[in-house]
């Protein structure tokens, strides 16, 4: 497993967030999540403009092993989705923090970073799972 990108925030559900300059955030699943699921074969994306609650289901990633919901880490609305994933879901496996991004969201309220995990805290969670 590669080192976690230091500029991202993480969730218990193995998702990551990148703060974009314009106040929006980009969301994807972590390398750990992608590796655990195995090769992805299908991604179901939300509609642009859709509102999502914090913790609500907003996308589905499916591998040959399992289908798994992707939850909105914070409340907001979907500003953009990564349409490339429809044809190339494996981008999530190949580049989970880059080309494998899933949605971009504009936030209803500000970003409360205390609700999310720092790279160090997320690394600790991964280490625990490893034992």
């Amino acid at each position, binding site marked *: 497993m590669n080192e976690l990108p230091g500029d991202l925030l993480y969730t218990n559900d193995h998702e990551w967030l990148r703060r974009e300059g314009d106040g929006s955030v980009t969301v994807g699943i972590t390398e750990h999540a992608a590796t655990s699921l195995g*090769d992805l*074969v*299908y991604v179901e994306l939300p509609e642009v403009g859709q509102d999502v609650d914090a913790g609500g289901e907003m996308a589905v990633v499916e591998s*040959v092993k399992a289908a798994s919901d992707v939850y909105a880490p914070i409340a907001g609305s979907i500003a953009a989705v990564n349409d490339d994933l429809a044809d190339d879901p494996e981008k999530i496996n190949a580049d989970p923090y880059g080309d494998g991004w899933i949605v971009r969201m504009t936030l209803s309220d500000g970003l409360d970073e205390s609700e999310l995990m720092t790279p160090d805290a997320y690394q600790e969670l991964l280490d625990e799972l490893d034992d």
Partner: protein
Amino acid sequence: MSELIFEKSRGGRRAFAQAPVEARSLSIPEQFLRDDQPRLPEASELQTVRHYTRLSQKNFSIDTQFYPLGSCTMKYNPRACNALALLPEFAGRHPLGPVSHGQGFLTCMYELQEMLKDVTGMKGVSLTPMAGAQGELAGVAMIKAYHDARGDTERDEIIVPDAAHGTNPATATMCGCTVKEIPTGSDGDVDMDALKAVLGPKTAGIMLTNPSTLGVFERHIKLIAEMVHDAGGLLYYDGANLNAILGKVRPGDMDFDVIHMNLHKTFSTPHGGGGPGSGAVGVNQRLLPFMPIPVVTKREKDGETFFDWAAEDDIPQSIGRLSGFMGNSGVLLRAYVYMRMLGRDGMQRVAEFATLNANYLMVKLRDAGFELAFPERRASHEFIVTLKHEAKDYSLTAMDVAKALLDKNYHAPTTYFPLLVPECLLIEPTETESKETLDNFVAAMIEIVRAAKEDGVQYKEAPYKMPVRRLDDVKAARELNLRYKPE
């Protein structure tokens, strides 16, 4: 790959056993007659026998190999059950024949209902669902019907533990309910705090498998039942793992309101190929009015007792008719014969030996160095080994071990289920295996891991000796292509 039977076909070739008989003149209206001949293979009798015999030889089966496929209960199905279910008086019975001509069959069905009530502790049984999934659907539909009949129409949440079979959330959704998933504690039992947090005025019920898919008995079941009932919800028992508790513990005594039983699985029908099944449902007192129909009932007329179908008139609040006649009657007859052969004591021995075999195999594997997912728990009829360290240190995944086992002539255990245990094998030996078989399986497991650790053997292409090698399941999922197109 071998030829399809269609590729062997030559125009005009006939199998004697399948030679056409002179068509009886049936007055079928012109518009329903087909214009051209159906595309059927034309092969000789010997070609056909060889073709299907070869196909069967390529298959893994309980008749030929140990089949520890967790959650599936691949046990031996006594030949007697099949032979008796095939008696011409059963097999040749016309479902629309008069009830007076079917008293033998109806007697068997009535007694089967009674025996299932007894072994599960429920008050009523309907045999009509034709598969486990249909039994589940019937179960949750009855829960909904019960709340609706009381005017309690806001209850639309079904609680499902994260270890549940995928059919549970699917069933709840099909019944128009919202699924509330709750996590499992590290000891394999339901997280009680999480349960408490989701219970409320919208709770319709909870779906539980006990023993759970983690292969452990839910120890807080009485408390869970109390909490769910106090919140106004009902309890649904997924009978997938009934084999572990048969005749020992009864879902009715655990305060479940409705259960389904996979008769094809626990009670002697070869299964696993999507063939005919039976998802009979059992209910307690409060769900009796909602049972799916038909049900076999006992009636009296002129001082004579006879058996008859109970349908819409008898059960007006029924959730409805789930099969035209009596479910899959062949499966039901096999279940009946199996239960009669075992008797009450035999039924308990099924559970005892299923559990003994699982615990023996679990301890042998643990002692050989395999990591158990729930080491502090006793197994029910199945248990979970996790290969997360082997996967990390030697790149030996659960899938690699599963495929390597095929080359050693064992069917693979269930892989990657339940999802909450990484790199897992779910192993269910069943009661019908000998100690020698279990010992040989342990030896095969040890050898697979030893070769990977010491000799650096990689099983990425395994199986090597099977008629079909490792499939590219990712490509198959991404580029699904199932249809045979003739030239």
